[in-house]
């Protein structure tokens, strides 16, 4: 039986049967005890779980009712900031869909029910609007609407806001990047990581649109508590989380059909993180494991979408050639070329930090030659890294302004979203306190500034400002530029 996932906007009507059944299932699963592996809070806790906060918000009356051993095995599994982000969320979504689909089938609904996706990057004018079914206070029958029962920010549509000026985009879908990132550069799926809820650096898909959608819906986090989508420990409680991740998953599926795209398939990726396992509840109430390889096209957990081209940035979807790369990251070896020299703390005010070009890097006409980067031979691509960001907010948004040193005019602006910041900062938590790193490509910007020609400009200035007014301060270990020959 194939579950065909469809665009919620193409179902023909508001409150289409697929969405009505979703709402009924959400309501029913919310009524199950927390100890049930099919219950709404249990399924959400697999992504992230904050026992004290959940109790305080009345999400579960007693967080300890699930045995500690089960909690350690099943909860707080979500994979972020690493190359397991796409496959783990695919398996999670698959398991969720099977459990809801099972309930729906046994309660009079279609046996082949599938999770709809929110195609927020399609060209349709209303694509950015949060679907009405997730806003309306009541369902068509007048009963309270479980899909709108979630703590969210004020925005009813995705897009730039005063506090987050950058938009969601499909840039990553057509960027010339491979799946696995070399350290210091940007990959589609992310850098190599072990089993970690918050690894090192975000991949391109996770950075934008994934992280942006989370904070745009969760909202400016000065209210306490924050909107659920703003915090990975609450995000999956919001029914819209699943629509969002269905689209993220579809973007990955579409990307893999791109003729020039190289999907990671090495055993190191395909077999998953050793020694941990990705474990999900199944429809029988038992537990089952899966590996990233199980999520590739043609494998047991591969999904089926009605369309892979609309709103994906991929011109020819669903059948194009797929190049499968085994363990490669493409191009030459990246090298550090510029860095600031101190940890900065960003509180209420913006902080300007100077990046100094490595002295020897500036001695040759080509940055690639000067840095001793090997391999490749084509153009050099440059990446800005904001590394080791730590803070106590559930997430953070940093707005960057890039300038020539000593100048006021801004050469480029970038917004970076650090989804799950507090989790990654907790020293004795599951993440070791390493913080998060975000990476953006700045090849064009630094070329315009003259750095790539090593003429005149010995560095650049990066101004870092917190987007959320009143947010707890964040520290940044360092800001760097890495150059990689293509």
């Amino acid at each position, binding site marked *: 039986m194939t579950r065909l996932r469809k665009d919620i906007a193409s179902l023909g009507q508001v409150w289409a049967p697929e969405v009505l059944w979703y709402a009924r299932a959400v309501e029913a699963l919310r009524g199950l005890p927390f100890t049930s592996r099919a219950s709404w809070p249990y399924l959400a806790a697999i992504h992230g779980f904050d026992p004290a906060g959940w109790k305080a918000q009345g999400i579960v009356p007693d967080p300890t009712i699930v045995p500690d051993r089960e909690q*350690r095995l099943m909860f707080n599994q979500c994979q972020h900031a690493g190359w397991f982000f796409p496959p783990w969320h695919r*398996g999670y979504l*698959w*398991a969720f869909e099977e459990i809801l689909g099972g309930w729906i089938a046994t309660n009079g609904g279609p046996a082949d029910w599938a999770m709809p996706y929110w195609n927020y990057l399609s060209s349709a004018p209303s694509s950015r609007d949060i679907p009405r079914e997730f806003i309306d206070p009541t369902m068509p029958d007048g009963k309270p609407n479980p899909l709108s029962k979630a703590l969210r920010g004020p925005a009813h549509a995705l897009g730039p806001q005063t506090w987050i000026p950058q938009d969601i985009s499909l840039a990553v879908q057509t960027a010339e990047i491979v799946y696995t990132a070399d*350290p*210091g550069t940007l990959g589609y799926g992310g850098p*190599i990581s072990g*089993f970690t809820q918050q690894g*090192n650096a975000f991949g391109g898909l996770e950075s934008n649109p994934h992280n942006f959608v989370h904070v745009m819906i969760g909202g400016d986090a000065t209210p306490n508590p924050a909107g659920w989508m703003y915090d990975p420990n609450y995000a999956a409680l919001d029914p819209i989380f699943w629509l969002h991740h269905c689209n993220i998953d579809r973007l990955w599926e579409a990307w893999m059909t791109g003729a020039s795209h190289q999907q990671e398939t*090495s*055993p*190191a*990726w*395909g*077999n*998953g*993180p*050793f*020694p*941990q*396992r990705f*474990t*999900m509840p*199944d429809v029988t109430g*038992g*537990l*089952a*494991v*899966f*590996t990233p390889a*199980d999520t590739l096209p043609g494998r*047991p*957990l591969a999904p089926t979408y009605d369309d892979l081209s609309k709103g994906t940035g991929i011109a020819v979807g669903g059948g194009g050639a797929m190049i499968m790369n085994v*363990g490669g990251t493409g191009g030459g070896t990246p*090298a*550090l*070329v*510029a*860095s600031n*020299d101190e*940890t900065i703390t960003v509180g209420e005010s913006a902080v300007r930090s100077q990046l100094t070009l*490595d002295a*020897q*890097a500036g001695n040759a006409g080509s940055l690639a030659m000067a*840095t*001793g*980067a090997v391999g490749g031979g084509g153009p050099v691509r440059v990446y800005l890294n904001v590394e*080791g960001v730590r803070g106590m907010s559930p997430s953070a948004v940093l707005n960057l302004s890039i300038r020539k040193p000593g100048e006021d005019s801004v050469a480029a602006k970038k917004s970076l979203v650090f989804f799950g910041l507090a989790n990654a900062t907790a*020293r*004795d*938590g*599951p*993440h*070791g*306190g*390493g*913080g998060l790193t975000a990476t953006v490509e700045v090849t064009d910007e630094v070329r315009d500034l003259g750095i790539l020609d090593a003429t005149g400009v010995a560095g650049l200035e990066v101004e870092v400002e917190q987007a959320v007014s009143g947010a707890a301060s964040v520290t940044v*270990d*360092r800001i*760097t530029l890495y150059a990689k020959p293509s």
Partner: protein
Amino acid sequence: MRGLIAVCLMSPLRWLVPSSAAISGASLLLQSSIGPIVLCGSASTTARLEQLQVWTNAGLLDPWRLLADWTLMTAAMMLPLTSSACARVAHAVVPRLRNWAILLHLAAYVLVWLVPGLLLVPLGLVVEASATPGFAAAGIAVALVWSATPLVQSARNVMHRSSSIRGFGGVALLDSMRFGAAQAVPCVVSCWPWMVVPFLFGDMHRPAMVLVAVYLFLDRMEPPSKPRWRLPPALVILARALDKPSRLGRA
């Protein structure tokens, strides 16, 4: 397991493990050239302890010799555990400083381990002289209980934590050394009883060293978690390896 092997081949382990083996082999060469190595030589336990007694009676016991032996033993056992940290150092600095940064990082790491050696070497020699099978089992039990403590879990968490390392100049090398020392301290906290365990195995101390090194490596693989009394991660991993769970999506 295939995934683990693949990741190992992609990491600094591909040169750390051979280096560790080479250091261990070097102790054998020293054995043949300068006489019995006290700690890790290939001579039998009886012969080594007799030699130790001879040196002591003659007032010839050379602390530098013991220090060198301890350094070799520590380096051989600990190098594979530094893989993630070495990768971090390599990534953080400019390419021309990479080798020096890693070398200084490892040097600082091993240097920190010399301090507890002042206590652990005499302790090891004493337990070796007293070793019986029952004593060995008790020693392993003590090490396992220590590994199960919340303190040791806190130490493991610290070892998973990254540190800011500047990218170029002398400060990059200093930061790499500082990171090495910062990694070694929690390593000492978590591993010190295990460094005594090989002494409990007499003539089998070399295989015991290898097994302890593998155990400690597995212990390091588990991601950070909340400090609490717990089954040591290495045992959890071994138990998990025997488990055959069902596969999602397969009938």
